[in-house]
């Protein structure tokens, strides 16, 4: 009998081991994500995870269902894919009654946006019509894509900027009693196909400026196409999208567009933007997540912006950026940035990015490394909006992610045709008429959401199903707010062609919290950009007031900190955009602090 060399047997076993490796890795991953796939009753969830989310929209008087636009008939074969955005939610206390209200966009031609006033009794009432911010989707003017609130004239009331695929609108808040449309007086352009906007005071003059990110080029009227060559020229390197706008607030209700002058001239396909002081310079930097390409990081020196995405590491690998959220996930006083992308098993594994700053005290710039995989927040399906917030008040920031692109026929997928065209030459991919018809097929539809619980040791665990998040709508925007002033963060989710979901949070007794409502004086009145560095029990956490974050969303301006059990020695350092710093000591847990910037 022929003798088989030992070495060959060993190599063969090694080969078999290599073939088995994927199965072993999958098993390990399944063990780690076991919690995500098991549903628990509320009491068990409270005991195990410290919180439970209950969907209460109907009981809260909200029966809003988003309607998608119907664009030019030339796009009919791929209409579900193209007309796939517009569901948004932003949190604002527009009437200054101390209770968060909700503004929700609709996107069908002629449909109405809703402004849900918080009635203080667990319910909301739509007052958009009477306030004059409902009828904003009239044919010929485009349709809503999202909204951000900021007090641009520092009168104490939050004003509304509505971005659309169409005519953007600026509404002045008339002391909480009504809104006045001031679009033309403010100097807004006639048409932007925008999917992102953020209020921030880039030059620190105490007046809020506004960034708006174009998606489709601004000369494209999606209802009256000159031709069908309006698609991205590449799935990952497209630079034929909409222009960017930076509106400098001149005061007196007027704005000047200064983007090119200040170093922002990208034509990538922006889907999300956020501003935060990433380097502790006192100036808010701008992070833009682009679809069909790399993210951009614009460092702000107070006078100009410098795009350093590639050098910083965030603009190296092109993906499909759809979210920008900042969070001090390691409780070390630095913001990480969460950018959502696409992951579809067996097809496209981009993975979401959690950009964590690298420690380099000597460096004047900033660089990041992607720790999404290491920290367990990488794979989220066709991910859209995400927000950081301490959902169980344990003292660490958790992450809520919604997802799902087009949910039509459950048994038929458009993915094959999608990859067929996406890999093609720009002359093909860029023309909508070359795209195969969707014919009722889904594209990453009916996806399970992710609620990643921060274990405080550098890892997140998905507990979505166990804590009650079981919906599978096509999620777009996520906003967090303490909707009923209970000291817990509730979650509001806007779904494309789906209902607005309000997840009421119940947190297990024992964990404490503290909240801050900041009001600027020298700084902008909204205090957007103001940061609170809270210290307790030997740890600290940094949060700042945002003028828009996530995807088509804005969280409550009030900052919510979970404190865990028995918080001691609590103090807070408040960094105002004006440069002023105020330190608060002897703080008490379970209390909302309203802090006005010292004159």
């Amino acid at each position, binding site marked *: 009998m022929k003798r088989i060399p030992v070495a060959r047997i060993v190599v063969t076993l090694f080969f078999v081991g*290599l073939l088995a490796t994927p199965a072993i890795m999958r098993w390990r991953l399944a063990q780690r994500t076991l919690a995500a796939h098991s549903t628990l009753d509320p009491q068990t969830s409270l005991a195990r995870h410290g919180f439970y989310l209950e969907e209460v929209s109907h009981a809260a008087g909200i029966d809003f269902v988003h309607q998608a636009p119907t664009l030019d008939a030339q796009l009919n074969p791929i209409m579900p894919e193209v007309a796939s955005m517009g569901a948004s939610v932003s949190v604002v206390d527009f009437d200054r009654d101390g209770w968060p209200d909700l503004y929700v966009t609709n996107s069908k031609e002629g449909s109405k946006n809703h402004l849900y006033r918080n009635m203080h009794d667990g319910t909301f009432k739509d007052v958009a019509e009477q306030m004059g911010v409902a009828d904003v989707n009239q044919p010929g003017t485009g349709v809503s894509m999202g909204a951000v609130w900021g007090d641009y004239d520092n009168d104490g009331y939050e004003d509304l900027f509505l971005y659309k695929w169409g005519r953007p609108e600026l509404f002045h808040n008339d002391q909480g009693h009504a809104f006045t449309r001031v679009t033309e007086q403010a100097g807004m352009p006639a048409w932007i196909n925008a999917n992102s906007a953020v209020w921030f005071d880039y030059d620190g003059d105490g007046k809020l400026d506004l960034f708006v990110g174009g998606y489709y080029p601004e000369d494209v009227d999606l209802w009256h196409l000159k031709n069908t060559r309006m698609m991205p020229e590449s799935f990952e390197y497209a630079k034929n999208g909409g222009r960017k706008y930076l509106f400098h607030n001149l005061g007196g209700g007027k704005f000047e567009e200064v983007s090119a002058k200040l170093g922002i001239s990208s034509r990538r396909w922006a889907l999300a933007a956020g501003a935060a002081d990433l380097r502790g310079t006192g100036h808010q930097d701008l992070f833009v997540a682009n679809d069909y390409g790399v993210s951009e990081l614009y460092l702000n020196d107070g006078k100009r912006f410098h795009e350093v995405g590639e050098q910083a590491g965030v603009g190296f690998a092109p993906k499909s950026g759809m979210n920008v959220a900042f969070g001090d996930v390691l409780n070390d006083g630095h913001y990480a940035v969460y950018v959502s992308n696409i992951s579809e098993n067996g097809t496209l594994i981009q993975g979401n990015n959690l950009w964590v700053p690298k420690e380099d005290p000597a460096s004047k710039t900033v660089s990041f490394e992607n720790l999404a995989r290491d920290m367990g927040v990488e794979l989220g399906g066709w991910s859209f909006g995400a927000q950081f917030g301490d959902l169980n008040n344990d003292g660490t920031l958790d992450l809520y992610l919604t997802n799902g692109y087009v949910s039509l026929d459950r048994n038929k997928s458009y993915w094959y045709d999608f990859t067929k065209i996406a890999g093609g*030459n720009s002359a093909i991919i860029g023309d909508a008429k070359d795209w195969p018809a969707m014919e009722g097929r889904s594209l990453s539809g009916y996806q399970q959401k992710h609620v990643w619980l921060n274990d405080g040791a550098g890892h997140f665990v998905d507990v979505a199903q166990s804590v009650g998040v079981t919906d599978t709508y096509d999620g777009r925007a996520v906003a967090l707010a303490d909707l009923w002033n209970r000291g817990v963060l509730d979650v509001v989710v806007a779904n494309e062609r789906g209902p607005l979901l309000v997840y009421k949070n119940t947190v297990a007794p024992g964990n404490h919290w503290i909240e801050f409502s900041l009001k600027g004086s020298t700084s902008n009145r909204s205090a957007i950009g103001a940061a609170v560095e809270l210290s307790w029990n030997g740890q600290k956490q940094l949060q700042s007031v945002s003028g828009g974050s996530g995807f088509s969303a804005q969280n409550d301006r009030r900052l919510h900190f979970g404190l865990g059990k028995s918080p001691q020695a609590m103090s807070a350092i408040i960094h105002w955009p004006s440069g002023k710093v105020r330190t608060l000591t002897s703080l008490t847990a379970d209390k909302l602090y309203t802090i006005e910037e010292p004159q």
Partner: protein
Amino acid sequence: MSQPTIQTDTAKPEPRSSFRGWTPVSSSMNPYLPPVFITLILLVGHFSFGILESYKKTALAIVSSMLCELVLSRILVHKWPNLASSYITGISVGILLRSPGYWPYAVCGLLSITSKYVLRVKGRHIFNPSNFGISAMLFLASDAVATLSIQWGNNLAAMAVIWVLGSLIIWRARRFHICATYVASFLLFSVIRAWATGDPWLSEFSPITGPEYQLFTFFMITDPKTTVKPKWAQCVVAFSIAFVEMILRLEQSIYAPLYALFLVGPAALVIEMMWNARHPFARSAAAPALP
């Protein structure tokens, strides 16, 4: 210890051209031209469009492939291997494989090279190594990997340069007929697919304009070690690959070309071996044995 019964690439240049472990057909051809060419593609692609998701991942694929070749060749053949072949395998894995994790790059590189030493018929490996490795990963680890399909800017100029340069080199290597047959077959079958599906013809033609196909056409289906020998048979195999790919595409298989080569390539080789075993005269006349 008995003498190993397998053969593999060694430091000695091979007598035939190859895009893995290439040796020149003519004296003007440098045996390291293919590695240089694929490196050039990588560098141009990256510095023009940033195709690499991570230097580390690409390096991991290359290093694991080359180390594996080195170790297995020493263990099983007792010779120092020509690492050009494993370098191309590694770099192909680094470019074609897409995964947010690191381990797939290492496993794919190791799997590709190890397949050369394990999956052999009559002392000859029958799978194109990188095709085997990537196909196996796509099939077994679909939750963790995908392939490159959407890179290099979808840019016409970049695409034209690579096609022209690749064609010139493949022409000198006397394997242009394989590429030409495959491309022509793909075009023919794209018309048939468009007719069968009702989709725009350009959408069926679209995949071949992507970079995945450039690597596939120039570096995978032309591999001399895993292709049949007669020229006419090579054309038949290229046509067959395109045909099986069409069938898979009609079944909406995203990785149709890789799977088609995975299925057709080894089958063709085995058929050739069986044919040669029964027709020894034909073998000596038409198919010089590999070293």
